[in-house]
Each structure stands twice: as structure tokens, then as C-alpha cells.
């Protein structure tokens, strides 16, 4: 009996050794929920071509990814926003030197229920809605119904991007905030589901999530300019006003497997996957 248990323990020990040894051929990627599908697609293709390498991808939000890069628990952080000076300082303190690579572009779609008569808005109107100054759809030509604002949680790069570029209009001194009555949902999928079920809701997510259950809003810079729908062509041409770069961050210049993966991402094949997952390639 005891010998059996002993054998099992020894066997387990060997397994963990084997696992630890194989770890050299694996990388951990963490971060932006917006980018999870894209990076997962890269990782799958990459692993299919290099069967000995292993890449693990988890979401959680850009902030989560960057803070794990800083605490050394992942090799690559994916982020849908630029790293903050505060985070760089903290990383330097811990001996980590974040290095940035731009890997694609993402259009942010503002979405409503398909039954909502409102289908185009200006940037000012968007800011008014999400800060709570415009509280009824009536003011925008819709039904006499309260607007339900949906936002991502604060760990989301999309949340931060939306706040800085739409609510605060790129003004670093602006003090605008999301309306306190905004519902903070924990994933883009949760926003998609709530918008699909709620005719009064408005939310935002990365363009890749657009489906027939939600209606993307055409956005104009101001009343006099053209209303542009969030499509890949419009983001690429720069006409759609709400788009942002996507980044990956590594500790120092990429090396070894990380470098190999990095090169794969920027290769023709890698950038083709960007297009396949409804993002916009940089090349």
C-alpha cells in the first residue's frame, strides 16, 4: 500500500520535472480582452507551425496584463492602450523594462439595440451620453426612454481609451468621468449580451464583436462632417474617428521564443490573421 503511494509520488515528481523542463519552450501572454481572440488565433497558428512551442493566452484587461508583466508573471502583455508613465516607473523599480510593439488597429464600435431608431451620433453627443448629461433617447431623436449606459470595468483598456478620447476629448486637463450610473460590466461579451436584450442600452466594444444582434452607430466628428460606420475600410482610411492602436509589451527587447512569436505577428501571415479576426492590420 505504502509502496504504491510512494511510487505515485515519485511518478508525479517526474512529471512536474518534465513540465518544468518544457517550460522553456512556452510563453505566457496576458492582458486586453479586446485582443484575446486575435492573440489566441496567432498562438494557434504559431503552435500548429511549431509543435514544440507552447503559448498560453489569457484575458483580464489591459491593466491586468501590464501589471502582470510588471510583477513578472507573464512574458508578453497585450494592451489596447499605451502604457502609462506611472506603470513604466513602477516597472523600472522592479527591474523590468517594458518594450512596445504596435501590432494592429482596432475600431471601437458604439452599439445600440437594433430596434433603437437612433443610428448616428456626433462625438459631442457620445460624450454627453456617457457622462450622463444626455439622459433620454428623446433628446437624440429616439423614443422617450431613459438611456442605460454600459461600460467596461476600470481594468479594461477600452474603458480607459473611451474615457480619454471620447469623454475627455484628448484633453489631459479635462475632469470628465463616466456617469456614476453607468453599469460596469466585466467583459465585452457581457456588453454585447445586454445590448442585444435591452432596447434602451448603449455600449461600446472592439469592432470584432459586432454581430446582427447589435446595431453599430455611425459616428461623425461634428454636426457638419460625414457620419462614418465602423468598418475595416473606414478605420484603415482614417475616416472613422474612434480607432486606436493595439500593442504588445515585452520585458526588454524580445528574445528567443518571444522574438520568434513577435516576428510571426508582424509577418504577412500574422497580419492576415488580424484581418480575419476583424481587426485592422498595420501593414
Amino acid at each position, binding site marked *: 500500500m505504502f509502496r504504491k503511494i510512494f511510487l505515485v509520488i515519485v511518478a508525479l515528481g517526474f512529471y512536474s520535472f518534465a513540465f518544468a523542463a518544457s517550460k522553456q519552450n512556452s510563453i505566457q501572454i496576458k492582458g486586453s480582452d479586446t485582443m484575446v481572440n486575435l492573440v489566441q488565433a496567432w498562438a494557434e497558428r504559431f503552435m500548429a507551425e511549431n509543435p514544440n512551442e507552447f503559448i498560453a493566452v489569457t484575458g*483580464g*484587461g489591459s*491593466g*491586468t496584463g*501590464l*501589471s502582470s508583466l*510588471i*510583477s513578472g508573471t507573464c512574458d508578453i502583455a497585450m494592451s489596447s492602450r499605451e502604457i502609462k508613465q*506611472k*506603470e513604466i516607473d*513602477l516597472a523600472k523599480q522592479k527591474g523590468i523594462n517594458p518594450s512596445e510593439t504596435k501590432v494592429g488597429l482596432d475600431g471601437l464600435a458604439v452599439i445600440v439595440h437594433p430596434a433603437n431608431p437612433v443610428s448616428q451620433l456626433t462625438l459631442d453627443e457620445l460624450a454627453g451620453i456617457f457622462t450622463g448629461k444626455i439622459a433620454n433617447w428623446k433628446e437624440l431623436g429616439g423614443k422617450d*426612454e*431613459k*438611456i*442605460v449606459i454600459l461600460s467596461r*470595468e*476600470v*481594468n479594461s483598456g477600452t474603458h*480607459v481609451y473611451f474615457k480619454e478620447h471620447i469623454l475627455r476629448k484628448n484633453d489631459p486637463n479635462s475632469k470628465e*468621468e463616466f456617469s*456614476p*450610473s*453607468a*453599469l*460596469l*460590466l*466585466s467583459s465585452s461579451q457581457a456588453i454585447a449580451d*445586454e445590448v442585444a*436584450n*435591452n432596447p*434602451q*442600452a448603449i455600449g461600446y466594444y472592439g469592432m470584432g464583436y459586432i454581430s446582427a444582434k447589435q446595431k453599430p452607430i455611425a459616428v461623425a466628428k461634428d454636426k457638419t462632417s460625414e457620419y462614418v460606420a465602423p468598418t475595416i475600410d473606414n478605420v484603415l482610411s482614417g475616416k472613422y474617428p474612434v480607432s486606436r492602436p493595439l500593442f504588445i509589451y515585452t520585458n526588454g527587447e524580445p528574445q528567443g521564443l518571444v522574438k520568434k512569436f513577435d516576428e510571426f505577428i508582424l509577418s504577412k501571415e500574422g497580419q492576415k490573421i488580424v484581418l480575419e479576426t476583424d481587426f485592422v492590420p498595420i501593414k
Partner: protein
Amino acid sequence: MRKFKEFIIEKLILLSGLASIFFVILIFLFLLKEGLSVFKSVSPLNFLFGKSWYPISEPAQLGIMPLILGSLLVTFGAAIISVPIGVACAIYIAEVAPLKIKEILKAGIELLAAIPSVVLGFIGMVTLVPWVKNIFHLPTGLTALSGSIMLAFMAMPTIVSIAEDALYSIPKTYKEGAFALGATHWQTIWRVMLPAASSGIIAAVMLGLGRVIGETMAVMMITGNAAVIPRSLLFPVRTLTATVAAEMGEAVVGSEHYFALFAIGIVLFIISFIINVSADLFLHRRKL
């Protein structure tokens, strides 16, 4: 030799007993150490009574009043729902039900306790939330009420089993005396059994609520997480627990936000400590 063995065993048991206290103290010290640092950047009064929670802005606004009220409101709602049902259920099981039904009911309640909270949250999200929205004609079904209903299910097993124990432990003579005076079954329950078991029942309610206020997953999924001061049960709320769970991934170790989340931990610790201590006081009063 035997004495020596006895000695060793005694000390080992003592050590195990002390271990839990030791760990609680360690955890509390760690919480204090990390959480109190937040008061370097925000005064305790502004932290507890501030009305805005914008942890990642520059400068950050760290007021947890909406979160405290959110937690209390959800707990209060859950209490209104689970206490009458839970106590009535305990009375039925302890006093009225025939043996067979009693067994089935007890098994069912244990099963209810075994459902993981994330499952309850998920069920609530797809069934209860649209239902609340339609019945009350609300802009959204992600409200404190939805959270309260789901949490009531979680508090119920605790309330039922402890209240039932309290009813069982009443001396048989009380009941016999009441019957001998010509009281009906219901009069006996209402006038004799319930008052006699009252401290145990209050303890049951307290412990049930202790479970509710610490619950995270289900409330995070169905209460909407909007950090506003709630005006009624039909508004979205953000609870203390959901805030910690949703934001801990973002908070960089050593940042103001990180300390603030630990300070929320202290507040939660204090609230559940008060609840547990008062439950304990009630339980002990019963024994005197």
C-alpha cells in the same frame, strides 16, 4: 511512556487550535498594513463618506459610500426575502412536517447550500434579470433587487438549519406545558416556541446575513456594478466585494488603488466581524 504520548497529543491539539487564531491575526495584520497606507493620500472620513469612486483617474477619487450602501442595500433586501421564508421553513421542518417530508426537505436545503454561487449568478443573469426588468418596467434588470433575490437563496440554508437547531433545543416540557394549558399547535409555536428560541433564530439570521455580505460572484454578475448611491432596490448598485474582485487585477501592487482595495477589505472584515460577534452573543445568551 503513555503519559508522554498523552502530552504530545495534547500539545498537538493545542497547536491546531491556536493555528486558526494565529492565521486570523496574521491576515488581519496584513490587511491593516496594506489597507491603512491608503490614508496617506485620502483622509478616513473622505474615504468612508466620499460619494465618488473613480479609482483610476488622476487624481483618483476614492469614496466608498456608494459601495457600502450598495452592500448594505443588497443585504437588507436579501434579509427581507430570506428571513420570513427561512424561519417559516425551519418551523415547518422542526414542528409540523411528517418524518418523511422532513427528510426530503432537509436534503433539499443541503443541496441548495451546495450550489456554487457562480452558478446561481449565471442562472440569475439569464432568468431573473430579464424578469425583473419586465415586471417593474425598468430600464435595466441589473439591479439590487435581482442581487437580493439570488442572495436570499444563498442565505436560506444557513438560516433554516441553525433556526431549526434552535427550535429543537427547546426543552420538551415547554411544549407539553403549553398543550396541557389547552393551547393549539399554532398558539404553542407562536407564543411559546418562537419566543423561547428567539435568540437562536436571531443568531441564525445574523449568520445568514454574514454569508450574504461576503458574497461576490453572484452580485458582481447581476447587480450592474454602477457606483451610485442607490435610491431604492430597483437601482443598480456596486458592492464592496464586487469592487475588490473586479478591480484587483488592474491595481498595480503598491499603488494607491491597491491600498484602497485592501482598505475596502478592512471595512468588509469589520462588518462581518460585527455580524459574527453579535450572532455569537445571541447564541450564548440562549444557553444562560
